[in-house]
């Protein structure tokens, strides 16, 4: 994967473009511009956040994470449910987000892991990134979420669209009351 891609101008140009995309997404989420955020999602989006398990040495590959399509996970969703989540917040009576949380999406370590057909003419890119999401609500309630993301972005006529996202939250027992934010 990544190791095989040339780190040439085309690569870095594409990386910059993808960074911008992820930063823009973070702005949409933290500024609560959910409608615009939904527009960034492909209709066939698969949005996945597994649970992480403590397993014996040597068994991580098969057992560490819950499996998309098989197990219960934190998120294993399509665009429809994400739109529902937005709709719910916008009712103004979704108490877990009313009053609204203060959110900060820190996005870092952005890398292009694959580009098809090429960096120069990419129609589809696999992107790795890291995040810290800082959430504070009501008075002192505070949560810190940290982890990695593996995305698949597709270039459509209107711009890039998120087709796949895998979110690896680095927690076992979830150290939060709720997952009302998008990652």
């Amino acid at each position, binding site marked *: 994967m990544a190791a095989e891609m040339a780190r040439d101008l085309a690569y870095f140009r594409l990386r910059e473009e993808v960074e911008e995309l992820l930063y823009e997404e973070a702005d949409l989420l933290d500024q609560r511009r959910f409608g615009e955020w939904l527009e960034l999602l492909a209709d066939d989006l698969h949005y996945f*956040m*597994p*649970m992480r*398990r*403590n*397993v*014996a040495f040597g*068994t991580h590959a098969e*057992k560490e994470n*819950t*499996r998309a*399509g*098989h*197990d*219960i*996970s*934190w*998120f*294993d*969703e399509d665009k*429809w*449910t994400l739109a*529902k*989540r937005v*709709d*719910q917040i916008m*009712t103004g*009576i*979704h*108490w*877990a*987000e009313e009053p609204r949380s203060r959110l900060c999406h820190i996005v870092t370590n952005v890398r292009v892991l694959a580009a098809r057909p090429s960096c120069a003419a990419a129609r589809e890119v696999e992107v790795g990134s890291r995040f810290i999401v800082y959430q504070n609500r*009501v008075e002192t*309630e505070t949560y810190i979420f940290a982890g990695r993301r593996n995305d698949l972005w597709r270039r459509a006529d209107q711009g890039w669209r998120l087709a796949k996202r895998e979110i690896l939250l680095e927690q*076992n*027992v*979830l*150290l*939060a*009351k*709720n*997952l*009302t934010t998008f990652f």
Partner: protein
Amino acid sequence: MISSDPLVDTERGIVSREIFVNDGIFAEELETLFARAWLFVGHESQVANPGDYFVSRMGAESVILCRDKQRQVHVFLNTCRHRGMKVCRYDEGNTPLFTCPYHNWSYATDGRLVGVPQHKELYPDLDRSQWSLIEVPRMVNYKGTIWASWDPKAPDFLAYLGDVKDHLDQVLDHRDGRPGGSEVFGGIHKWIIPANWKFAAENFLGDTYHNPSHRSVDLIGIGPSANAGQNTGRRDNEYQGGQHVWVSFPAGHGVHSVWKQPNAPYVESFRDNKEVEEYFRHCYEERTRRLGEKSRLLPFTGTIFPNTSYHGRQPRALCVWHPVSPTQTEIWRFFLVDADAPAAVKDLLRHYYMRYSGPAGMTEQDDMENWNYATAASRGTIARRYPYNYQQSLGRVREGEPIPGRVSTQVTEESARGFYRSWQRYLDGADWDALIGRAPVRQAAE
């Protein structure tokens, strides 16, 4: 000012806030309640093979659910007898031995202390049989679900259940009416909330009155058929025309179920997917055939005293409210499905379960917000002087009509009153006759 003395006054329908926030009372709960009552530990499908283990919790402690070489299922306290080290720090797996990382004492999957380095020279007189892993004195496998109690004198699990058994059966049995046949999906929800565990237990034993808190999800519609276009609120309505019943049981259990019309036709549900629709139609008809009159009972939600709750159908899961502190609870949820259901059915249910339940569940997020800030607002010096109100439908209850138990046909807090009546008895150190409410004692206690 309404004063609350004693802490629980179910006659007047008031309960002190102290029991939700007081450190001393919390410590007593661990000692007198969680160390005696039957607690849910896990499901046999999680330890299918010899050597399989699943690390679970009882009260505030880690326990190991495992199957030994003889295929016997055991529940052990997860601590070494030498210096207390947690012998298993994995969530699940398969092992021939639990070897302690500190000094390598090792225990077989049946709990026996089988390995003590240099035992001949250093422990010539050690009677190893006295130093096995600490095993629960009472354990039962009920239709695949494993329950345990730390009290050797605890009554049999069925006696402990009493008439709530009929309702629990509807949760555990196959949708087509065959006994058992359920399995647990891989992936157990585990998360921590800043609320007292009883808010959750009480909410599930029949607090239908909090429906308005879920208005946001009802407005948008996330039911199994929601994607098919029609807004079905939180769930498809399988209960049309049925008689909702709220039932309280002497041992403290409480449920909200539906008693359907005789020969009620199948209510179309899961319209999203033909294969799934057919599966449930088939199950419905098959179940009616098998259970006859009994098939009229459909479970909604319930709590098996003290801290195991269920969703009966949509979604279908067991939830355990593990006490961490007066104001913190670690929640574990196990999602159930018919083991032999077609992939499409499992898949649709799995997605529905995830969007409904847990920290990412559009319905339950609002419950947790409420439990959180209800707990917080009850801690204050002044607040603690004002008890909660449990007077809803006070006295509006009948015995055994149409089904066994103290039944209300209108929304009620009777089950909550029953729950706290039992809670008080545990804290008073009552004997088991009183605890499971054998009639004579029960009168006395009231």
